[in-house]
């Protein structure tokens, strides 16, 4: 009897395994071709001194890695990435959530808002970079205009070493808030409408409903949004490349722009690959650790 149940269980497990295999096969095929293979390739190239185009590479062992570990510019770029990461999570997700909540509460009336708020997401980084270069220009830009209105002088946000990074972070936030808005809107659909109606009948205000009922139910989605934001900001490239090119000096240099510079501009493909592989390790470890922490907490609760 017991034995019988055991084999039944085993058979069931086997059919589950097979189903899992079938469902996961396509994704792993594609990832192998386009992602695993290139990343292994870049680990291999990182052991060569190579300009990226010559037929002969010089094997240098781990010397690129040694250089990377002691490379102050790389770690400075990493620091910038971390700053972008923290501020992106702190700025983008709460605002995105607030917008989604507003739309959720306002219902049909907020359709216009939904469309208009979504526009930044639709624009390409080129357009955004261009427009903000003008909007933030010290002479004739919007920020300076506002400052003058209050009797201040012109403000040069992007040209100043101390403000360039935070300015770029705000522009990135502008670009990505709509994504987190849509993400939170989708998450709201998992909170059943009945719960909402019931809580209103119970006399809860909308504020109470949000803080005490909706927010806890949304927490898992917010956690994964944080992971997304984290990974995204650690490999960020586009807007920085268009807006500042890493400047002034190296004030807004990121890991990805640093890698790009080395690999494609300075003919250091070997070192550029080491930077890329280093980035990969750092981002993976950081995100997996974060997920472990988040999930661990979930089990406790």
């Amino acid at each position, binding site marked *: 009897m017991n034995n019988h149940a055991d084999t039944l269980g085993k058979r069931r497990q086997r059919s589950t395994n097979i189903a899992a295999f079938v469902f996961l096969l396509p994704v792993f*095929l594609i990832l192998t071709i386009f992602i695993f293979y290139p990343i292994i390739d870049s680990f291999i190239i990182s052991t060569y001194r190579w300009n990226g185009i010559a*037929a002969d590479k010089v094997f240098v062992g781990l010397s690129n890695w040694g250089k990377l570990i002691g490379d102050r510019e790389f770690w400075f770029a990493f620091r910038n990435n971390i700053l972008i990461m923290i501020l992106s999570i702190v700025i983008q997700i709460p605002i995105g959530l607030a917008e989604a909540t507003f739309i959720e509460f306002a219902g049909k009336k907020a359709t216009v808002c939904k469309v208009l708020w979504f526009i930044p997401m639709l624009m390409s980084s080129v357009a955004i970079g261009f427009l903000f270069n003008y909007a933030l*220009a010290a002479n004739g830009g919007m920020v300076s205009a506002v400052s003058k209105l209050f009797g201040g002088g012109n403000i040069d946000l992007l*040209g100043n070493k101390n403000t360039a990074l935070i300015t770029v972070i705000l522009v990135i936030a502008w670009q990505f808030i709509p994504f987190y808005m849509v993400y939170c809107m989708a998450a709201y659909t998992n909170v059943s409408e009945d719960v909402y109606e019931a809580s209103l009948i119970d006399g809860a205000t909308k504020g109470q409903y949000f803080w005490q009922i909706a927010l806890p139910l949304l927490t898992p989605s917010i956690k994964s949004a944080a992971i997304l934001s984290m990974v995204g900001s650690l490999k960020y490239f586009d807007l920085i490349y268009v807006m500042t090119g890493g400047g002034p*000096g190296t004030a807004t240099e990121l890991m990805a722009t640093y890698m790009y510079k080395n690999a*494609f501009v300075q003919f250091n493909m070997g070192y550029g690959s080491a930077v890329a592989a280093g980035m990969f390790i750092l981002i993976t470890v950081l995100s997996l650790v974060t997920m472990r922490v988040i999930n661990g907490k979930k089990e406790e609760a």
Partner: protein
Amino acid sequence: MKKRTKRIMALGLSVLMCFSVAACGGGTEDTSQGGGESNQASADNGGGAADTAEAPAADSGSDSGDKVITFWNVGTEGADKETYEMAIRQFQENSQSGYTIENIPTQNDKYKEKLVIAMSSGECPDMYTTWSGGPMNEYIDSGYAQPLDDLYEKYGVKERFMEGALEQASYNGKIYAVPVKNISIAGIYYNKDLFAKCGVSVPTTVSELEAACDTFLANGIIPFTLANGPKWTGSMYFQCLAARKGGLEPFQKAAAGDGSFEDECFVYAGEKIQEWVNKGYFPEGFNSMSEDDGQAKAFFYTEEAAMYLTGSWNTAAFKTDSEDAGNDFYSKVDWFSFPAVDDSSADASILCGTMGDQFVSFNCTDEKLDAAFEFATYLSSDETIDYMVSASLIPPVAGVEDKITDPVSKSIIDAANKASAVQLWYDQYLNPTVANAHLDGNQEVFGLTMTPEEANTKMQAAQTEYLSGK
């Protein structure tokens, strides 16, 4: 009712999904094949590396065998595009070689990246343009360019070009490229109206220039317009000042490893820049403004700024922009070479810039190379040259000054003809890593966040590291 719609929806969805399963199945099959082939491809590549080491040029990118010469360039618009197309027409009409040219213009911004990717995969085009200098030398060292001295002899075109242009197309004593387009040198465009209004005449020394700047400031005019976001714009000031202070020797010695970027002429250049920044010679916020988006031009066009130190390719832009707007702005513009440093004995006719701007290199051999070179000769045929001159481009050919009637271009070509030497842009001449160190440091010098000495030390450190790795 509700249930029914739900069921219908589910049905429809599953039909759709079945359809996409079929599509997906086909797709995964394809891609799995792709995986196999790609592995093979990488193995091929690994094995092929040894082959290509012996004769890399033989492995030209295009599907060899057919008589098509692929030509990569950045002429996507306007006069650039027309110049190439014109030469192709002439070649197709006149050539007996039987080859045709496949013109592939791509946008400038990531052109170098595209070349690196193609070359690293052994897919280098048969002909491609470069800006000469460091990157061109890398391509040559890696075996993607052919020496052309014999072909220059054969077609008898050597005399056509200005000597300085051929010099920049050479590497280790051989000519590796054909100079194409614009003579592009750093100089100062100025607004004649504003000069007259403030009673300023064209300065010949730096102290006169500074006096002029002070006069402009007193009249509420910005002396220089500058957008230093892309960094190479501010680098022109550094290069001109250093060349006027110390001539060419300090730079060439430093670049060759016999001297140092900590030489006094580089310190002078950095200090002058900071002095000028402090005096307010540049528009507010210049250090982050974008040159490509026209933020520097805007001050010049609105006549808020009197001078614009930049490359001479801008003549064409000034002319067409002014024509498009239907005003007389262009008639107010003229040009002068960077003035001499008062107490320096350096030759003030030296120019910074490039004598061709675009140089065509060749990655093919034998018959194909011959045909490709024949095509390149049409880039400096009389017809093409006439067109370029009419479009305010200055081709780097001998005797071009006789064809030029435009007054601004005339000033520029006179300076070019008088020049005893032309110093190629630092950021193209130097190894790219060193060049970046210079550009980054110089931007901080402009931003007053780094002293000239610090910036020069950084640049020298990059140079030392580069030389030690060579």
